[in-house]
């Protein structure tokens, strides 16, 4: 983990980090990665992936049901306007929509 990688990851999450913060967080991130590396040392070659299989018939039938009320949907929004959730531009940061 170097400063450049950390900066890239932060940008993907629209987080702006100062140089000082990058200095401070880079070694911290490295410790986290080291812990993950320890997990990867475990031999799992004989362990099958823990992912459930279902058959086609187990899928949800296409039936529409009631949704939440608009009031409930907007209840936790900090900003709203005419039934819409309002988001101020800062969240976009310097990276544009994909």
């Amino acid at each position, binding site marked *: 983990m170097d400063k450049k990688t950390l900066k*890239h990851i932060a940008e993907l999450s629209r987080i702006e980090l100062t140089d000082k913060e990058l200095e401070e967080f880079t070694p911290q991130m490295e410790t986290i990665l080291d812990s993950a590396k320890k997990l990867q040392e475990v031999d799992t070659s004989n362990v099958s992936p823990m992912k459930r299989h279902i058959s086609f018939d187990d899928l*949800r039938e*296409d039936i529409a*049901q009631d*949704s*939440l009320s608009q009031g409930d*949907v907007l209840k936790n929004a900090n900003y709203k306007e005419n039934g819409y959730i309002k988001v101020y531009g800062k969240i976009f940061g310097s990276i544009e929509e994909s």
Partner: protein
Amino acid sequence: MENSKYDIIIGLEIHVQSKTLSKMFCSCATNYFEKEPNTHVCPTCLGLPGALPVPNKRAIELCILLGLATQCDIDNEIHFDRKHYFYPDLPKGYQISQYKRPICSDGYIDIKDEDGKKYTIGIERIHQEEDVAKSTHHTESSTGQKYSLIDYNKSGVPLIEIVSKPNIRSAYQAKEYANRIRQIVRYLRISDADMEKGQMRCEPNISIQEKGKWEYKDNGIAPIGDYKLNTKVEVKNIGSISAVEKSIKYEIERIINTIEKGENIIQQTRGWNADKGITEFQRSKETADDYRYMPDPDIPIIEIAQKDIERISKEIVELPNEKIERYQKEYDLSDYDCTVLTADREISNYFEDIVSLLTEGKDIQKAAKLASNWVTGAVFSIANDKKIDINEKNFPKEDLIELIKRFEDGTLTRNKAEELLRRSIDKGNPLPKLIKNAINEAQKSATNLGDIVNQVIKENEKAVSDYKSGKQTTIGYLIGQVMQKTKGTADPNEAKSVLIEKLNG
């Protein structure tokens, strides 16, 4: 678009919204069009913590159906992945999509190229994902601050992505390909694919390479020798099939001009401006997209059995290409007639019903020609003028058959018959009643005309004897008398024939 120096290489990504009742991973209704914002939303499609996505069976069937119709291989397992990016239209911070194992892969469709020859366009993959929310961007007048308004009704609507192989070689081919895809999804009732409503979106990527310096390799292109490939340009914001062709044509010219000026093409996304007829720079892509795909741990692996595929295959109907071939063989219709009659599944079914109703006691090719004349003629023109669909409700088949028969046996002229058909739509008058009235009227005016002619003959003894003694030109004078008595309403030709009949009889 032939160019001696450069090759044009185009890939097309098409998204279509599936026509299901509920969303991809929750039970919210999909009919959000023109509904109040944020009323078709639940914890799942709002991305609230703890909500679990549950895949929609019908949506997956429709995705497989499209794969089968386009000769794709269908995977025996369905794996969903998370595609991460951070944007307010994506409440979870990731979109559920498919990465390494798309449900359908390696298919193709045939189009008719500009020179009329068949051209096959490869399909790299077709996969299932979910739509994002709708956001509109604004500026606050008091503070000048930028903000977006988000409506999550569209969030989670099933979305099928179709990725072509980069073997589309002209703007025309791209348009035909998009058109064909739209036709197939409509025929199979996978999607309404209305581009204006955003139910179908086309995003071409275009690159221009020097002839002989590149080759196809692993579903992409690779340079030959030390040639450096020009990067590709993506075009978004295309709102119609014709804009697919126009925007690509514009972009090809723009890129070639840039290369000719000795400038580098930068990897970028451009937006089509339909009003100005140009593409505009949107953003550059300096680094490759970094979506940090990972298997979605919330969704189990779905096994597809042979019986599932068999069940879904039953929904495949005869598609336009096959229909055209059959129409040519069975009906001996022109290329043009075949193309317009098969463009829409409802219309082609309607047409085929008319043919079989007309075929009774008639040669099938004659019946088909007659049906084609009426459907592509009067029916198309009326439906177009009145902006109505061609179906049993608007143009009852038995009634149309009655009309065609009356035209065939000479009871009604073509003009009269078409006029009646149009009037039946305008006033909501049943066609059989109009036909009956028209026949009665014609008979009535025929008797009237007979009476008037008798009267004219009685009142013009001299002219009559002149005519009978061989002075044929007197007939003109007698016709004039009939016209005068009917105040010009009689048909002069008819008046003439009735006169001659009575004078000779």
